[in-house]
């Protein structure tokens, strides 16, 4: 499958201030391509540029230099703005501040209304999207009656209704409780699995990244690590140095390895960890 997102030497800084001073680059030459159907987590601490990067995928921001193409559309091409936004939908952090309507189903329809989708088609897509995130029974509720996780799923439904090829989620779980996080992550994974939608998940939760196909770690406006989760997480030193966590199991394996034990550094699940410890003990018995 081809690449849906292509980023070439992307530089970005905000506009010069009144005195003509150019602020420093927030993004310093990003090169990244993401395959159609991939589930990618972008990790980094606050202020590393990950949200700025996300905003480039949806033409909320336009590169200062370099090029971003999504599904073949150059994001700086103003004539194809709606076309682009329809193909790459965006979900934000605060569930409250992205719901427009006082009725759930009308909010899901918002983008379709803007795009002028005819009623019959709209009705069908709204119902399907709500069912896809398990919110169909709440279609006539007011958003203020919903929990954070439910609101966030409504926001996702509103994006899915556009039938995008790619969804970019900018810290969608940062404001949710553990239950809400689980619901939202389950919905995102289902979209990826069942509809083949490419997912770019911006987050600082390591456990969310552990379930992805690929992890991209950013620091100070640059991509510093890129690979499958177990490979990326095994670089515990590097991650800790830039202020990120690793899953506790990965950290334990890393600590044990540092103490001279023969244990794989690429452990990211509880089962893998338990199995590895079990092996350590069975080995000592054999000796």
């Amino acid at each position, binding site marked *: 499958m081809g690449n849906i997102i292509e980023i070439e030497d992307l530089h970005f800084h905000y506009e010069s201030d009144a005195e003509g001073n150019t602020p420093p680059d927030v993004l310093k030459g990003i090169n990244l391509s993401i395959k159609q159907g991939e589930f990618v987590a972008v990790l980094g601490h606050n202020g590393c540029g990950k949200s700025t990067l996300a905003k480039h995928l949806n033409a909320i921001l336009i590169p200062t230099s370099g090029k971003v193409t999504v599904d073949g559309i150059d994001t700086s091409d103003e004539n194809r703005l709606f076309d682009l*936004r329809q193909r790459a939908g965006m979900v934000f952090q605060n569930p409250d501040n992205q719901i427009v309507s006082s009725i759930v189903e009308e909010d899901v329809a918002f983008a379709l209304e803007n795009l002028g989708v005819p009623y019959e088609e709209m009705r069908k897509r709204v119902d399907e999207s709500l069912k896809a995130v398990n919110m169909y029974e709440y279609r006539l509720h007011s958003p203020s009656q919903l929990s954070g996780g439910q609101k966030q799923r409504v926001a996702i439904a509103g994006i899915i209704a556009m039938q995008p090829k790619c969804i970019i989620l900018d810290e969608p779980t940062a404001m949710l409780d553990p239950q809400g996080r689980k619901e939202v992550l389950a919905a995102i994974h289902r979209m990826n699995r069942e509809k083949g939608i490419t997912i770019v998940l911006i987050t600082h939760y390591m456990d969310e990244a552990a379930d992805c196909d690929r992890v991209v770690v950013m620091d100070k406006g640059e991509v510093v690590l890129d690979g499958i989760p177990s490979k990326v997480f095994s670089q515990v030193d590097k991650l800790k140095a830039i202020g990120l966590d690793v899953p506790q199991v990965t950290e334990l394996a890393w600590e044990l390895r540092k103490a001279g034990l023969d244990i794989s550094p690429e452990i990211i699940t509880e089962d893998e960890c338990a199995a590895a410890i079990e092996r350590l003990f069975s080995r000592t018995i054999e000796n």
Partner: protein
Amino acid sequence: MLKDITIGQYFPGNSLIHRLDPRFKIVITLIFIIMLFTGKSFLCLAIGAVYTVIAVLLSKIKPKMFWKSVKPLLPFLIITAVLNLLLVSTGDIVWEWKFIKIRSEAIDISVFMIVRIVLLIIGSSLLTYTTSPITLTDAIERLLSPLKKLKFPVHELAMMMSIALRFIPTLIEETDKIMSAQKARGAEIDSGSFMTRTRNMISILVPLFISAFRRADELATAMECRCYHGGEGRTRLRQLKSAPRDYIALAVTILFFGAVIAVSILTKK
């Protein structure tokens, strides 16, 4: 608690009145108001009262609820009635005590006025009780849509109105939270002198405004991401379809209005 305040006073239901097309409901309410002010006799008022009672019964909303909307206006009604009683100087004197003279016509006028205003309140409450604010906004947008040709920003106003409705509960909840947080820092909001209370209001209003602006900013971005570009070429999920019942309701209303006009003309002679 602020949370307990209900906004828009909408009582969800599935009665005939609830199901009427909101555009028709607005037009019907307007006719009803004109009808009340056209009739100058008690007979006309009686026709209006019959109409109101039928509508209230059809709405299946408890009469108690209508009392709730009349109650806040009672002092105003009583004061106007008393003034009328004292100041009207035509008609026979019915009752006299020192300089106070109550005349028959004064009683007529006061009663007439009170009944008329009460009917007016009940009638317009019926509209808001049976139509959700968002539907109402939508209906107004559509009724006013011919004004678009005159460059009147109908869609923009309706969008602002519906976003306001959407965020009222959110901001109320937020106010509640900020109030608690400042109280936890010893701010006196429910007690203390007027000056301290006013000063402490600032500690609530500033965060509230900042948060409202932040929300507005984020919402605008989110709307843009969902391809919002004004009212042009928009389709709607909410379809307003008029049914035969809407025309019947309108016809019945016009019939009552006709009756009021007829009675007025006939009694004038």
